[in-house]
């Protein structure tokens, strides 16, 4: 019955060059042109660069809306043929676009949040000497991300994937004069490169077994894959996704990425780019369903990341670092969702997370703006009256991410946990629930420390509300965070049904529920859990006098200290890869100089002796070279004579 319903809603594949889909290639091209124009003419444009960049983003958004309208009106998988990119031997890859329901959701999130962040940045970056360059990079990011979500094959997806990585590198290192920031940028790029190797090998394997990199062809061929190949393929794709979406063991770059300007953290490192891994796994969901074992690995990676990052977030004292670990944690929920077969629920959480986490970062930027770039949570507080818009919108986002009904995050997170339960993953469900408690806890701590109680900021700081260009995006995202649940207020709601044809059916995976509980009961459990986390934090931080600062931190003990030091993972990685790898490289360099080149020098010693004798017969450098030439010629002449004989 369920299967029949799903089959009936499967998309037809429509190749088209007309309508909104026909000009969908403009969606990435507009911001790409914006990037080039601003980059080349930044000296001349100065502040006007922002208008150009915003116009490009707005154009991309409007076109995306037009494409959305077309797909909603006539649901199908549209393919827009475009010229070839790489065609060599057996490999043939074009720039064709793939537009279906999943594409539409991603397009709207990316261009929508992207546009808001562009507008916000006008106020935020106004004083910066790199103002125009910043907008150029934002446009580059937007173009790259749109290539990623529009590409119809793994290789054009990878093109976007790498270019968002480049944009991320450029923007994390935007203030490159600071060594730590430049290092963070490089760390992000290199960590992602490790994931890229996995992604590339996934493509090699797909090509070697299926003979194509085309997403539709690959997905169509997925049911015929052997179990071993399917499992390998999914795990390799996961390797790529785990880097881009900051999952264990490759999450370490994302917290450092907070070195970038805060609008960048909101757009790239919370709302959009870091969800690319989730997009990749959902996009290839038919391949995933060919290996339920590999899917379970995804689910475990997701839930463990969600928990680990949530624990770390509890004891971070930097306004952005809390949000960064929170992002890692929330991305973990999306992977959990994908792993337990809840593809659509994962995408729903991706959307609501883009709203409330984008908002939280923009609000953090607003606070930092008001407090002269203060980032220490213990030097904030008392901002409720001074910054009413930032305060109110942040409150909405705080409740949304904590999972308080009826805000957006409540719906999306609960639907994920429900699916984990319904699909028989009991342990994952419980760990996910524990993560939800922690989420409510650390976000409440964050909110209290930032906004409530008496002011703890440094002398001479007079907080003020941010300008309209920053406030308006906050309000828009606030409304979306509050009402985003309406996209899918019941489990099989509008968004769920809309996305149906774009993801793999899971009816045949044989999921059996953990127990007899139905969704209302599970929701009840969730609400109790969230209330507990939120209430505990309120009790610990909300009622306490925090004016003494960090010394009154109530969460203490060995585990808490380890959490504050991020469980020393960064130190361990540094020891192994920087220390160990560096030692190997230095050893090889010595080997190269002494052994390999030494052998050559030994062999050449005779020649050198001969050379000395030859040099004695000559005087003057140039004549020496001429002599070499003459000797060479003579040799050839001899050779000719010999052969003539």
């Amino acid at each position, binding site marked *: 019955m369920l299967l029949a319903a799903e089959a009936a809603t499967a998309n037809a594949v429509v190749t088209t060059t007309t309508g909104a889909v026909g000009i969908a290639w403009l969606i990435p091209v507009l911001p790409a042109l914006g990037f080039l124009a601003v980059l080349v003419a930044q000296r001349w444009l100065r502040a006007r660069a922002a208008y150009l960049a915003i116009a490009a983003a707005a154009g991309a958004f409007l076109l995306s809306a037009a494409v959305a309208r077309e797909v909603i009106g006539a649901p199908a998988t549209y393919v827009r043929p475009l010229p070839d990119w790489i065609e060599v031997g057996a490999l043939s890859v074009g720039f064709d676009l793939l537009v279906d329901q999943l594409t539409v959701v991603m397009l709207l999130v990316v261009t929508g949040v992207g546009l808001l962040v562009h507008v916000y940045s006008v106020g935020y970056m106004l004083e910066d000497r790199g103002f125009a360059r910043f907008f150029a990079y934002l446009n580059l990011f937007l173009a790259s991300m749109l290539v990623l979500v529009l590409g119809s094959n793994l290789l054009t997806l990878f093109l976007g994937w790498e270019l968002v990585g480049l944009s991320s590198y450029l923007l994390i290192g935007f203030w490159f004069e600071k060594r730590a920031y430049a290092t963070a940028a490089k760390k992000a790029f290199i960590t992602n490169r490790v994931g890229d190797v996995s992604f590339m090998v996934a493509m090699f394997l797909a090509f070697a077994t299926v003979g194509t990199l085309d997403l539709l062809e690959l997905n169509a061929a997925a049911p015929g894959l052997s179990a071993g190949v399917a499992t390998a393929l999914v795990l390799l794709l996961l390797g790529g996704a785990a880097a881009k979406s900051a999952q264990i063991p490759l999450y370490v770059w994302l917290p450092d990425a907070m070195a970038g300007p805060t609008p960048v953290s909101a757009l790239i490192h919370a709302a959009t780019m870091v969800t690319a891994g989730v997009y990749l796994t959902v996009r290839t969901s038919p391949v995933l369903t060919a290996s339920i074992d590999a899917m379970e690995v995804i689910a475990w990676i997701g839930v463990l990341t969600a928990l680990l990052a949530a624990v770390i977030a509890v004891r971070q004292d930097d306004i952005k670092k809390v949000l960064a670990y929170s992002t890692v944690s929330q991305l973990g929920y999306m992977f959990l969702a994908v792993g337990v077969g809840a593809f659509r629920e994962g995408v729903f959480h991706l959307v609501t997370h883009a709203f409330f986490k984008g908002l939280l970062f923009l609000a953090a930027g607003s606070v930092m703006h008001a407090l002269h770039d203060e980032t220490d949570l213990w030097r904030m507080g008392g901002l409720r009256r001074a910054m009413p818009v930032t305060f109110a919108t942040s409150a909405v986002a705080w409740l949304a991410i904590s999972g308080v009904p009826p805000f957006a995050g409540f719906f999306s997170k609960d639907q994920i946990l429900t699916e984990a339960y319904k699909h028989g993953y009991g342990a994952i469900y419980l760990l996910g629930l524990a993560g939800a408690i922690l989420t409510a806890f650390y976000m409440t701590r964050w909110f209290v420390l930032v906004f409530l109680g008496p002011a703890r900021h440094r002398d001479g700081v007079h907080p003020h509300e941010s300008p309209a260009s920053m406030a308006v995006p906050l309000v828009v995202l606030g409304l979306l965070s509050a009402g985003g649940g309406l996209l899918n207020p019941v489990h099989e709601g509008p968004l769920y049904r809309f996305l149906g044809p774009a993801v793999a059916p899971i009816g045949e995976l044989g999921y059996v529920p953990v127990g007899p509980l139905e969704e209302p009961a599970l929701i009840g459990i969730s609400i109790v859990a969230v209330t507990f986390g939120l209430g505990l934090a309120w009790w610990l931080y909300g009622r306490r006098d925090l004016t003494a600062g960090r010394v009154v931190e109530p969460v203490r003990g060995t585990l808490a200290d380890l959490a504050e030091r991020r469980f020393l993972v960064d130190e361990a990685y540094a020891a192994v890869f920087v220390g160990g790898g560096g030692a190997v490289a230095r050893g090889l360099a010595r080997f190269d100089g002494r052994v390999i080149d030494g052998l050559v020098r030994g062999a050449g010693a005779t020649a050198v002796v001969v050379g000395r004798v030859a040099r004695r017969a000559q005087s003057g450098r140039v004549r020496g070279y001429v002599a*070499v030439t003459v000797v060479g010629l003579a040799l050839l002449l001899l050779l000719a004579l010999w052969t003539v004989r």
Partner: protein
Amino acid sequence: MGPLTLTVLLPLVGAVLLGLAPGARDRDVRAVGLIVSLATFASSVWVLVGFDRGEAGLQQAESFTWIPSVGARVAFAVDGVSLALILLTTFLVPIVLVASWDSVKDRLAAYTAAFLILEALVIGVFAATDLLLFYVLFEFSLVPMYLIIGIWGGAERRRAARKFFLYTLLGGLVMLVAILYLQTRTGTFDYIAIRDGLALDPTVQGWLFAAFLLAFAVKVPLFPVHTWLPDAHTEAPTGGSVFLAGVLLKMGTFGLLRYALPLFPDATVAAAPWLLGVSVVGILYGAAVALVQTDIKRLVAYSSVSHMGFVVLGTFALDRTATAAAVVQMVNHGLSTGALFLLIGFLYERRHTRRIADFGGLARQVPVMAGLWLLVSLSSLALPGLNGFVGEFPILLGTFGVNRAAGVLAAFGAVLAALYLLWAYQRMFHGPLERDEDRATPDLTRRELAVMTPLVLLIVLIGLVPGPLFDLVGPSVDRVLAEVALAVAP
């Protein structure tokens, strides 16, 4: 005389012109060099215009009597592979000459003449269809390069020049013996006659293959016969480094594809797995050693060892995708590494140091140079959208289909490339602008920008629209592979 012979001779005419007027002013020398090299480029484009892409074999053949008694002729022809490399050569020479206008203060006429002679020899190497002619040109190309390093190079130039000369000369001598053996068996040096008319038993093939391989492996250079390259690069003047990395190394990989594969197919197939292994080691080894270099030129030299490893990997994958991409990657490496050496040269002229630690925070001071440096680095580390990727990815993809371990291990070269290039970039261009020397470093001049522009445009263009390049080399590569397969099959 057709355009192909004209392309070989034009630079020689320029060199003779410069030799006839020993007292010429630098301005006139520059003009002659530029005009002649541009005319040569135009002539090679003329070859391209007349090139029949439907024909996979050698075409536009021209042949002149040389040593009739042994069947040696001055014979030229091109296929897609050699034409691509000839175009790369003629494209790079004007760039190299203009880039050297200010940096070479001493004997500019001789320097320019040396480059033009070198250009003629190298074009001849790519176009020759007579084995003796090929050998003579292959070895004689050492002489002008030896002079360029030895006269206009850095402090240790003489030692580096001697090492370069002896190393590569000795590699070539073994090949000469093999070529002579082929002549005694066939009575001719004609490439096509030997290729199509000679059936050698596998043991003999093995020896001859080894002889050719040694000559070409040194030239590439393939691990472990690569140690002449870092010294030569470090001491060569900017133009020498650009031309060495851009073109001379390709004579090795070109030789493998043109001679080692079709002449000795059984030996090729037998040796291929070993060479895949050596290539992978070279890719990772070169990258690891590049990582800890303190001299930016040595770093890029070792990166060449790594990147040329990709080319050899693709060549011996003996796969239509990988091998064609290997040829494309020869061109890409020439453009990317050439551009990188140019930028290093520009910086060296300003600061007279190559030590990475002597720079810092330059991006604020010289934003244009920094931007181009980053772009070229990204091209070199094979970022999709730039030229390096469209070569490297199909090489890996094709290799994986033949040998999974080789494909996977080589892919890790991409991580290391990002590491050494971005780390070097970070140390030189990021961080605070503190030193007085850094604060006083001027950005690129118009001339330097003009020199970089064609390279940068090609880097982006090939990255997004590689089709024409693949179409040019594809049929010729397919033909070579078909010959190998045909010879081995029965």
